[in-house]
């Protein structure tokens, strides 16, 4: 009974942490979409007026159809409705580190128009040991919510032992100062919760030599022994990668990844005689089309 009580408390703590990770991102997102505090046109504290950020529209905003007088556009399909397919291999790399050698990937494919897209995401790491616990594929509906932000809803399926199927919901976007943010919350088929937060920043040494700094963290409400995952913050992954854009669509790179694990996950790793902190050199290519 006491054990159950402790477990419940632990779950609550982790759930709170998950919520926090999401809330930080949501806060950035919300800042842009709900900061109607200054009326359009009033200079705010930054002196930029409403050109900065996304204040809410005033109630008396102009009606764009006001000049139509009932006339309708002739029904045709235009290029502005073009559905476009794209594929991005953000990371496609050979890794060598204290966990052995193998391959790592972060892939994304999309198909759709300006406001709605179907999206496939997959990431994973297969080195000498078992599959990395983040190895998964996601099928998502992306919706362009505002100028810089979109929402995703869909399903994630893990690979390897102890795999779960999750409902996924999240936001992705470009924050002020050009940070690409990606926060996804997950609800497992048995009610477990998880969250994945990613952030990245491109530092341009030149317009072709680009240092991309990426950060990822995963949080879990319950342990999953088959994946050697404890509850709480599982890991943090920090990876600078220096790429050279031979063309926009083809950029070989080298990088270094430092990945400590925490709490229960660290305990599992110690017990399995795996290093608690992984580090690896990576060589790969960033591709898209």
């Amino acid at each position: 009974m006491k054990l159950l009580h402790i477990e419940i408390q632990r779950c609550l703590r982790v759930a709170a942490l998950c919520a926090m990770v999401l809330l930080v991102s949501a806060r950035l997102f919300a800042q842009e979409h709900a900061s109607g505090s200054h009326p359009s046109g009033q200079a705010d504290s930054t002196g930029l007026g409403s050109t900065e950020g996304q204040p809410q529209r005033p109630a008396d905003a102009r009606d764009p159809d006001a000049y139509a007088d009932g006339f309708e556009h002739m029904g045709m399909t235009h290029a502005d409705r073009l559905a476009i397919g794209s594929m991005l291999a953000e990371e496609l790399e050979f890794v060598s580190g204290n966990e052995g050698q193998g391959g790592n990937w972060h892939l994304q494919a999309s198909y759709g128009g300006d406001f709605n897209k179907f999206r496939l995401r997959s990431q994973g790491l297969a080195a000498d040991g078992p599959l990395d616990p983040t190895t998964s594929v996601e099928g998502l509906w992306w919706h362009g919510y505002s100028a810089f932000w979109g929402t995703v809803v869909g399903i994630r399926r893990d690979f390897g032992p102890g795999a779960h199927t999750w409902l996924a919901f999240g936001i992705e976007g470009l924050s002020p100062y050009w940070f690409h943010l990606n926060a996804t919350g997950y609800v497992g088929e048995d009610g477990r919760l998880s969250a994945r937060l990613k952030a990245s920043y491109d530092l341009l040494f030149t317009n072709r030599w680009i240092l991309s700094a990426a950060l990822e963290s995963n949080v879990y409400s319950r342990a999953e022994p088959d994946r050697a995952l404890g509850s709480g913050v599982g890991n943090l992954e920090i990876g600078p990668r220096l790429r050279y854009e031979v063309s926009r669509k083809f950029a070989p790179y080298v990088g270094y990844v430092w990945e400590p694990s925490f709490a229960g996950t660290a305990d599992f790793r110690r017990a399995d005689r795996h290093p608690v902190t992984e580090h690896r050199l990576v060589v790969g290519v960033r591709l898209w089309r």
Partner: protein
Amino acid sequence: MQPELFGLPITASGLSRRRFLQGAAATFVLGWQRPAWAQGEASAPSELSGPDFDLEVVELPVNFTGSKRVATAVNGLVPAPLLRMREGDTVTLRVTNRLREVTAIHWHGLIVPQAMDGVPGISFPGIAPGETFTYRFEVRQNGTYWYHAHTLAEQTGLYGALIVEPRTPDPDRTDRDYAVVLSDWTDESPMQVFLNLKKMGAYYNFAQPTVGDFFKDVSSQGWSKAIEKRGMWNRMRMSPTDFSDVSAATYTYLMNGTPPGGNWTGIARAGERVRLRFIGASTATFFDVRIPGLPLTVVSTDGQHVEPVDVDEFRIGPGETYDVIVQMPDDRAYTIFAQSMDRTGFARGTLAPRPGMEAEVPRPDAPVWLDHSDMMGAMVAMQAHAGHGMVMTPPKQARHARTEYGPTTDMRVDYPRDNLDDPGVGLRQNGRRVLTYADLHTIGGALDPRPPAREIEVHLTGNMERFIWALDGVKLSDAKPIHLHPNERVRVTLVNDSMMTHPMHLHRMWSELEGAEGRFQVRKHTISVQPAQRVSFAVTGDAPGRSAFHCHLLYHMAAGMFREVVVA
């Protein structure tokens, strides 16, 4: 199913895209024809005179860059032949489509009936492969115009000069007369360019701020200034070097179909007066034109005579035309230099007494970042005044549409600037006399002296990250037309809520640009609106039926920056 977007074959399945690409690839079916630029020292594109014209739209193997590609040509020429008409004539143009895709030719700037305007989807369905369409209309104006495909083929070479001789001879006689067609060529297919931009707005921008630039600024201005300089751009996620969507990373800039190395040459001897009819036939490039050593007298724009004004340089946007007169002081060569607004390249030619001569070719200027006034409009001046404790009449506030607060629109300008006397980014205080719209005064005044009875406000909006371009935040497909009553006089006020300059072209009706206090300034068919600028023009609803109104940057038009205008 092959729905047409003003000639762009589009479906949701991407099927027609493949067809499009195949159509472009499998084309060495016609005999080899020499591309126009390789026609030796030919000093002008070949020419046809009316009133009857037979034009055949064909695929043409070309080589502008060292790689063989297929261009879209008229009668085997890129640029298409110069068409010479006479004011008052009724002309007949039989256009035969020998391509594998629908085509359509628009007579840019000519006032013609709806069915003769050449816009697929508005004027007519377009000209199907193998078909001949006969355009017939009365020419009711004179001056320098041009014609082009109202499809993606505008990028692949379908454009040419169109000159209407006045009924009564022009009193301003010149000894020589050349059309100077400025354009941009890419070895990529236009659909590929569009897709690249849709996936990455900055695809062709290799002048983005770098770490090196930052430390250069730190050493010259100190840390706080260097950080401040970037602060606003970075907070707003805007690039200070977003001048052109497409740069010399893929473009080769052409003068009369000739790359810079080919040196198109117009013959001109000492003492001769030369009329140069500059035509902005590019799809995505503003050119800054000058002839080092020669002052330029601008005598007309968009086919309309203006009070002559002497300048060293002028900016010409896609769709615009400028007639310039120069006087050759001696028998030397002079370079006609047209650098792209983003400074990544240039088109170049020569005025000289003999072919084969050349003068020094300047290097493009260093790119200058967009100004804070390009983002904040009149707010900059307001803050400057406030800082000095001065009182200033508040500038007129823009009225944003409710649809500008969604995913299509990444910025809005509350207090746009009204300064027509601004030459624009990269030309400010450059030490040369640069033409501005404030310098242009159409001779004879407005066609319609009535003051506008009402105002139509339209905002030019975009989302650079996702390459969405729209008016009032609404793309063409989602928009309703703008309605004008027959013969009513209205004021159209454009507010540029983006960081790019947009050449806005209204078909079949004149746009009479207004200066301060609504005074008539200059009559044009294509008006370039600078970032964060407000521009008003008066228009009379004298073209019954449906017309196009759009940004003349081809890829902005394709992305949705387009409206129908209905006069009924």
